[in-house]
């Protein structure tokens, strides 16, 4: 048979036209060159691997009613039909023969590896009953939800507020909270949204051409900008793929980045390259001057002079001494940044900010360059994320909870930007509280967090954690220590809306269970998504609704009402209701766009998968503000307040919105830092890292380990079941520079012991010119393990033994590597690699930054040839020592309460923001 060509001639199109998606026909590649027709329904959804939320298009085979493959969704405004390797690899995850298809209840002791199948009803009844009891007994803070990858917008905010608990915990303090705090101190917005495509100069302290927030959409636009003439500089001690294609690779010694950035700022100030008019208009220089010279005259030129003086020590020579980057290069890049005025795009997310003590000063120093070049929120500049990120609202918003959970926001870290999540087991061990019901959701702290064996010790203790339910699409090292393992859907198996600040533009995307969507389009109907998904794989949206009804079946607790339909009062909310309401009422422009195609908004999103809400969002700080009667204006700063709250700022006689900071300006000077105990850090500055050269003992041979670098092919511990990705990348040797290797007598492949504060791991080395001397690096993702047959993924996890040594330490040893195994997928017999890498994070003590609360990832280590008894993959950890290191870092904090007896500043955002009165200590 012959199919028609889409267009005459030899021209090729990227995608089947959307009007053909209901019944798309193409030839079966497996039968080719026999022309055998395949009929597909193409259903858009959203990738659930990294956080970027790129569009996918599921090819649902209409005969087999099975997903055949995932391509990109051309209608998605950020990913534009393109994906990284993890997009098409979603098909591996869906068809993984090792995946968990049914709810599991533990059968033996926790962690023993004994499981039995459970029904969803049983799961809901037990967990719902337990939560109900806790709520009725006033133990609201004993219920905690701990999330790794959210993948949705405000969903859990609404649910947990409806439950009235301060129970939202996240992964953010092992991820990005330092960078976030630095950005937030400037503008109240805690993320950057660079417009790479239109930039004249791009500076990345990240590896956005291969990883991170938001790899694929950013890579598209960075390369676009580069081809259009932008220059690209990358700071990274390791030659990332990103650094490789940069015009300038600045291999900064770990932790020295802020010094280099401030040296660049000094060049820009000294050489008159700063946009002073912008600074005068938009920074809170008056607050700075008033603070320095109480009662004195506030002159802008004096401010510029004092600012310049403030940074006098950051000479290019000093920056070179700190970073190892030649001064000429620093000056050259600084001048180019200055010349890019108005179109300087930059980004730091994890990298240096998450590696080092004081990492929040890195993003703050970077933003100083953005402000000096007047590139905040401009075309080609760096916008605050809130301008480009869509957030839904709901038909009814539950009020802030009347709870404050000290396990999440303890008094020692009043400025911690997110929850002190990675210290949860340490807090529990210290007796600060206990958990009755603990949900981990797409979250694997035993593997991902530092000091995972302390997590393991606490998770096994039923007195500290009453019930642990792991909501996860795949096996992970944490789920092994759960009472319930609850399989939740992957990209094409769940509903969510998601939006990210990937570009100059604001969009919303719709993830959907594609088999359910396809079968509903063909006329079937389903009560629950697990009826259409493989096995009984469910989705959280429906799970939480059902669970909430079981927690409060009669509505007496005041919870059920939040889970009733906005369209059918008193009846149970459905996912269709939920998204229908949002798409009809809370996405500007969507109803009209849908109507233009004769579709209801929900159907429009089901068929398009994404919607562009706005583009060219610039200069929002200049938006006029209506001043209510009774508003007050500060004659000096122009700050306009109403009912004690800053609402805008008067500039040139007009009241405009400004920024969501106490001064409504960009806070080059942070009164908050001063008032909350850190006066020496009131300006963007440079804090010597815990791995600064001066902190290393050269006599012991100490080096810095960068343990965080990511690969373009993997995502944390969620992609271990993607065979195509594992085939490309499956081990994580320790990168070491040629000169260091020579000093230690090492060659590529040699076994080494890497000793940390609390233990060691045994890995092999990769001798390379792609890393700074004195620095070693070991990539994230690899070194997965499983304790028992029948749990864990054989694609990526090696079987290990885990034993306590007589002196209380833990020794993990690989029993066998990876290898072929029999399964329904013939490829599992073809696994040709035998090495899945080595787990390093277990050997890291916790390093909570005393200000941001972020775990400071970089490690002081000694690399040695090790002991004869060492075996590849060995991990040894002393958890008593890790508690000691925890206490050392606890000692660095400056506890609250702060001014006004507050637990934390009211103006700084807080996840799951409680009722305002709860901020009072």
């Amino acid at each position, binding site marked *: 048979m012959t199919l028609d*060509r*889409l267009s005459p*001639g*030899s*021209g*090729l199109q*990227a*995608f089947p036209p959307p009007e053909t998606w209901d019944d798309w026909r193409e*030839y*079966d*590649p*497996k039968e*080719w*060159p*026999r022309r055998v027709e395949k009929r597909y329904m193409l259903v858009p959804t959203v990738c659930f691997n990294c956080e970027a939320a790129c569009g996918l298009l599921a090819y649902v085979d209409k005969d087999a009613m099975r997903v055949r*493959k995932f391509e*990109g969704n051309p209608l998605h405004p950020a990913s534009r*039909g*393109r*994906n*990284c*390797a993890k997009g*098409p690899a979603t*098909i591996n995850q869906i068809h993984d023969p090792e995946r968990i298809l049914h709810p599991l209840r533990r059968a033996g002791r926790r962690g023993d590896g004994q499981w039995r199948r459970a029904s969803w009803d049983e799961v809901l009844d037990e967990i719902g009953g337990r939560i109900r009891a806790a709520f009725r007994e006033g133990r609201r803070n004993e219920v905690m939800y701990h999330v790794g990858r959210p993948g949705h917008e405000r969903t859990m905010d609404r649910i947990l507020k409806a439950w009235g608990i301060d129970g939202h915990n996240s992964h953010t303090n092992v991820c990005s909270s330092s960078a976030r705090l630095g950005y937030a101190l400037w503008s109240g917005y805690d993320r950057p949204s660079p417009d790479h495509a239109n930039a004249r100069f791009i500076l990345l302290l990240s590896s956005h051409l291969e990883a991170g927030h938001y790899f*694929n959409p950013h*890579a*598209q636009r960075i*390369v676009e900008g580069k*081809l259009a003439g932008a220059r690209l500089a990358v700071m990274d001690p390791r*030659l990332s*793929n990103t650094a490789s*294609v940069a015009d300038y*690779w600045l*291999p900064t010694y770990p932790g020295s980045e802020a010094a280099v950035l401030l040296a660049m700022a000094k060049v820009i100030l000294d050489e008159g390259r700063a946009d002073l008019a912008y600074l005068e208009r938009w920074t809170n220089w008056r607050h700075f001057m008033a603070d320095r010279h109480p009662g004195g005259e506030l002159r802008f030129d004096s401010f510029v002079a004092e600012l310049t003086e403030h940074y006098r020590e950051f000479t290019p020579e000093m920056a070179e001494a700190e970073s190892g*980057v030649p001064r000429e290069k620093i000056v050259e890049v600084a001048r180019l940044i200055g010349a890019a005025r108005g179109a300087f795009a930059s980004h730091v997310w994890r990298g240096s900010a998450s590696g080092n003590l004081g990492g929040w000063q890195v993003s703050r120093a970077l933003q100083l360059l953005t402000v000096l070049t007047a590139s905040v929120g401009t075309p080609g500049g760096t916008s605050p994320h809130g301008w480009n990120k869509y957030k839904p609202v709901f038909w009814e918003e539950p009020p802030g909870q009347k709870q404050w959970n000290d396990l999440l926001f303890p008094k020692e870290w009043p400025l911690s930007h997110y929850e002190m999540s990675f210290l949860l087991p340490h807090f529990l061990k210290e007796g600060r509280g206990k958990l009755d019901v603990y949900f981990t959701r797409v979250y694997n702290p035993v593997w991902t967090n530092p000091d995972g064996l302390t997590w393991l010790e606490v998770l096994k203790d039923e007195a500290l954690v009453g019930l642990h339910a792991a909501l996860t699409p795949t096996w992970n090292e944490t789920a092994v220590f759960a009472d319930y393992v609850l399989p939740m859907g992957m990209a094409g198996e769940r509903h969510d809306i998601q939006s990210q600040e990937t570009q100059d533009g604001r969009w919303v995307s719709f993830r959907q269970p594609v088999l359910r969507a396809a079968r509903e389009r063909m006329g079937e109907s389903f009560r629950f998504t697990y009826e259409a998904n493989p096995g009984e794989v469910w989705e959280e949206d429906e799970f939480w609704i059902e669970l909430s009804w079981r927690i409060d079946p009669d509505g007496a607790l005041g919870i059920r009402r939040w889970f009733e339909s906005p369209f059918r009062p008193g009846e149970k909310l459905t996912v269709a209701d939920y998204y229908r309401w949002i798409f009809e009422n809370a996405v500007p422009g969507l109803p009209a766009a849908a109507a233009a195609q004769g579709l209801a908004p929900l159907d429009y999103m089901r068929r398009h998968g994404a919607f562009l809400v706005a583009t060219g969002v610039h200069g929002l700080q200049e938006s006029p503000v209506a001043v209510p009667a009774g508003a007050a204006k500060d004659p000096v700063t122009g700050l306009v307040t109403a009912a004690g709250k800053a609402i805008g700022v008067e500039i040139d006689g007009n009241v405009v919105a400004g920024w969501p900071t106490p001064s409504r300006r960009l806070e080059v000077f942070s009164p908050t830092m001063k008032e909350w105990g850190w006066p020496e850090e009131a300006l963007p500055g440079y804090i010597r890292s815990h791995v600064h050269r001066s902190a290393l003992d050269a006599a012991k041979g100490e080096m810095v380990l960068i343990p965080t670098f990511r690969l*373009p092919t993997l995502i944390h511990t969620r992609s271990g079941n993607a*065979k*195509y*990705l594992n085939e*490309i990348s*499956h*081990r*994580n*040797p320790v990168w070491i*520079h*040629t000169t260091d290797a020579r000093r230690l007598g090492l*060659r*590529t492949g040699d076994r080494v012991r890497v000793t940390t504060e609390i233990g060691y791991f045994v890995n092999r080395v*990769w*001798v*390379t*010119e*792609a890393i700074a001397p004195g620095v070693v690096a070991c*990539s994230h993702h*690899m070194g997965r393990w499983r304790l028992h047959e029948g749990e864990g993924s054989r694609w990526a996890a090696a079987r290990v033994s885990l034993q306590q040594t007589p002196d209380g330490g833990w020794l993990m040893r690989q029993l066998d590597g990876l290898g072929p195994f029999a399964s329904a997928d013939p*490829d599992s017999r*073809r*696994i*040709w*690699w035998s090495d899945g890498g080595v787990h390093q994070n277990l050997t890291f003590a916790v390093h909570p930054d005393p200000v941001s609360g972020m775990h400071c990832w970089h490690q002081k280590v000694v690399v040695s040839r090790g002991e004869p008894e060492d075996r590849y993959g060995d991990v040894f950890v002393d958890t008593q020592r890790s508690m000691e290191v925890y206490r050392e870092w606890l000692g660095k904090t400056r506890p609250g309460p702060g001014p006004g007896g507050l637990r934390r500043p009211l103006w700084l955002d807080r996840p799951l923001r409680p009722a305002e009165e709860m901020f009072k200590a």
Partner: protein
Amino acid sequence: MNYAFLIDNRRCIGCHACSVACKAEHEVPLGVARTWVKYVEKGVFPETRRTFQVTRCNHCDDAPCVEICPTTALFRRRDGIVDFDGNRCIGCKACMQGCPYDALYIDPQTETAAKCNFCAHKVEVGLEPPCVTVCPTQAIVAGDLDDPASRLVHLVARESVQVRKPEKGTKPKVFYIDGDAASLVPSAAPPMSEYMWSQAPPTPAAFGAMAASEEGGGPRRTYGVREQHRNSWGWKVSAYLWTKSLAAGCFLAPALAALASGARGPEPVPLLAALFFLAATGLLLVWDLRQPKRFLWTLTRPQWRSWLTRGSYVIAAYGALLALQLLMALAGREAPRGLTPITMLFAGGTALYTAFLFGQAKGRDLWQSPLLGPHLVVQAMTAGSALFVPAWLLWLLPLNGLLVAGEAWGHHATEDARRAARLIQEDRRFTTGVLAVGHLLPLTLLWGTGQSWLAGALALAGLATWEHLYVQAPQQVPLS
């Protein structure tokens, strides 16, 4: 219409999305790849740089894989795509010798040859291949070289572009903007035993791994996949060359001797021996096929430009003539005048055709030798004489030795040929096995003691060793 790819290295970020999209589209099994991204690093810190190269079938206008394929399983479509049909493939792996780019592999699921086919099934309905659509940075362009309006033609015309191994004359059609010599030339950064985040897939090693410096500023490969062509022809092919020499020589040498002595043809014993070795040759050939049941397709579905096809007919004709002569000899009837010379012609053809077949193996530089034809005939004569006319070894062994020396130490046109020759020179099986045991010792024996049977046996062992080295060495040279 002539489809081609353009890889824009100004855009490529080495993310492997193309490789995975391809695997997902075609369900390409683990262990093999239709397209992959090679990483090469150069320079010394802090001037180190890593380059990426999307590496795949070149859809050559003069595709050697199509020419060498005996059954039209590989074919060039009218739109310029080099496609394949696994249902016609006998699994002879000749295409893997023919392709100088390491584009082909044997699919472990189907046991037939496969490679990038430009997603012809998509192109035919007017869609780009998924490797193109998935690419985050639009670094891969698929287009029609004959369409002046295409983006591909525009870029090829405006930018300076490179191709892999233009000297092979295959007219490759994967063009690279900013192609990097250290990546384009496989031996500039040869495969390593491990990579920056992966193991190197195991390849059966016939020789010691090619040593590459892991330190210093020279180019080094930091990500690669299995060299799929490597050792695709193993001992069975080496043995086939040897039994084929015997099959041809067991007739040629005795027939020459017989004609010289005025007889019409050889005795039944050499005829029987020739038939035996010819049968062994056929058996080895069939045994080496990944689809042995399809062996007759070389005759029944011939692709006439392939010397594998032509050789099969030569062997078949030679076998028929041998059988005829044997029957007549056994029946006590004298062969008609002219039959022996005709059979000799086919015996010679049987020995010789492999030179043309190996000549079609564009991936093997060492085999592109003008000496190979004469050498195969001399090898056949040597083998036959070793069994039936040992006295002739006194002149055949020196002659064969000269040809061996020519292959090993003579002038080689390309660096890759020299590389393979060097592998032979440095191998002890060559110096000890081929030269000492296979040539010097038998000559000494013949001169000194006249122990002709032992001399013959040693000469045959030398021939076998040589065949093995000669077949294997060029397969160690990296092609991608």
